[in-house]
């Protein structure tokens, strides 16, 4: 089918172009280190996280850092549409005899794939957060992270298709990406926030992605101090560190991914060459 071939071409180009951006790759490797090694350790020593039983702050934050990385990497990937528009490459795509939906979906897959390299890096450095991932956990993290980044790249496509310059990027970062991130429960548990914030967090799709990752990560850690080998999931749920079941998290994230991909297609359909 022609459309899928185009989707593949867009995906391939996205990944090839990414592989040439040494600075971006370097930043991708470096950033998670700072989060886990500096922020995680710093906050752990700065505040007591003992009331939550045996979950360390680093362990709590680790899924949040994955969520953050997926969000930022994906939005940045989608913003390449604006870059392509400024440098003219978008015209090459828009005048080609190809269905627009296949381009938009290709962008979303491309962004998600680029984000996967980041996910792999994060899995490799998981021990920094006191987490030792096994094969099942790795597969589960990758699957969820892919879903999250596919959704967030699509969100980026929705916005970038309508934006004509990189200047608008700052606005998007400040008024969309940061709130999405802060309200996702990546850095602090939702259960202790005021009602208004909790309501906003409940409608942030990233909340479910982060919660899902937390479900996955906690399920594979058996608390040593929790007595007779209780999985962290149980303790975390009791203390409000986990909000939903993995099923709910996956379902909501999947729904968000599908809806945002459709919105991305719709928005890209209206995109103009210059």
């Amino acid at each position, binding site marked *: 089918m022609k459309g899928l071939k185009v989707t593949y071409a867009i995906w391939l180009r996205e990944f*090839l172009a990414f592989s040439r951006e040494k600075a971006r790759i370097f930043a991708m490797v470096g950033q998670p280190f700072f989060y886990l090694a500096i922020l995680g350790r710093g906050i752990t020593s700065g505040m007591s996280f003992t009331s939550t039983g045996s979950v360390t702050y680093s362990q709590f934050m680790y899924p949040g850092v994955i969520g953050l990385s997926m969000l930022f990497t994906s939005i940045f990937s989608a913003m390449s549409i604006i870059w392509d528009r400024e440098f*003219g490459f978008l015209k090459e795509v828009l*005048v080609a005899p190809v269905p627009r939906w296949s381009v938009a979906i290709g962008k979303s897959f491309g962004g998600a794939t680029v984000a996967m390299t980041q996910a792999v890096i994060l899995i490799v450095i998981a021990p920094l957060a006191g987490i030792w991932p096994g094969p099942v956990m790795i597969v589960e993290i990758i699957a969820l992270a892919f879903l999250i980044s596919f959704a967030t790249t699509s969100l980026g496509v929705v916005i970038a298709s309508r934006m004509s310059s990189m200047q608008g990027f700052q606005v998007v970062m400040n008024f969309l990406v940061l709130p999405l991130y802060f309200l996702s429960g990546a850095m602090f548990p939702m259960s202790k926030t005021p009602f208004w914030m909790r309501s906003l967090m409940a409608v942030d799709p990233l909340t479910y992605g982060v919660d899902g990752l937390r479900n996955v990560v906690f399920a594979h850690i058996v608390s040593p101090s929790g007595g007779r080998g209780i999985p962290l999931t149980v303790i975390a749920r009791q203390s409000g560190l986990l909000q939903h079941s993995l099923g709910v998290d996956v379902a909501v994230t999947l729904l968000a991914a599908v809806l945002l991909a459709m919105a991305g297609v719709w928005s890209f359909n209206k995109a103009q060459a210059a």
Partner: protein
Amino acid sequence: MTNIIDVDTLTRKFGDLTALDGVSLSVGAREIFGFLGPNGAGKSTTIKILATLLKPTAGRATLAGYDVATQPNEVRQSIGLVFQDPSLDVRLTADENLKFHAMLYDVPADVYRTRADSLLRMVDLVDRRTSQVMTYSGGMKRRLEIARGLLHHPKVLFLDEPTLGLDVQTRNAIWSHVKRLRDDVGTTVFMTTHYMDEAENCDRIAIIDHGRIQAIDTPAALKQQIGGDTIIVSGDAALAEDLGAKYDLTPHAAAGQLHFQVAGGAAFVPRLMADFGGRITSVQIKQPSLEDVFLKLTGHAIRGEEGSSLDLMRQGIQLWRGQGGRR
């Protein structure tokens, strides 16, 4: 000769501004057709409509038998476009840019390989094919774009100001490519330019100004409209009067020289020298240029015409784009 492009009273308005005002023209297969006019005259608007990037307000255009407004995909498959601004991914290599294009245009992998080889040879980029495009010069990028535009064997290649901002050497090289294309591949070339000397290379030219076609003909026929060559002489003070009396013409003086038109300049000069030999210090014959044609047809020179109305039109286009109108 069958026409590959037929344009019938095409009109395009941007709000109150009429960018194209009833343009009609036909381009034959294997023709190199030039679209000549100042910036803002409607050249790019026409190309955009023919390339399905813009819908006409009124009128109809067909390309290779397909209606540009209602059969965009068929038209897109039939054309190659080289834009005013580069549209390559500079992070990719030449090969990768071509490969991507082949995938978008459904060129089979084995066909792609032979075509890419010969096209890269044609534009003289074979030894740089695995370099990232960001390391290319402006002329190399343009040549690569032309190669890319031909990869899917389009029936019509649109070149929007293909040599804008390029040095003379590169301009000449691109022109020899364009001509070879027509001869070897049989591509019809539709190009816009505001370089007069470039338009001379076209088989036929349409002169457009303020959204209207002023004339369509071969460069030679257009220049014949001027009515002969311009003779420029300098000599003594009474020369103007005596020349006028002798040949029944009215020379006009400019920068200390006398200008006048005669039918056949080359045959006239020996006569002039026989009659006024001792009194003339210099003679020039100037054959009519497209510049003169343009001046005669529109009443103004092609350059220095970037007036406020054109700027307004460009702003209008920007505004219209900003409002997010489709295509």
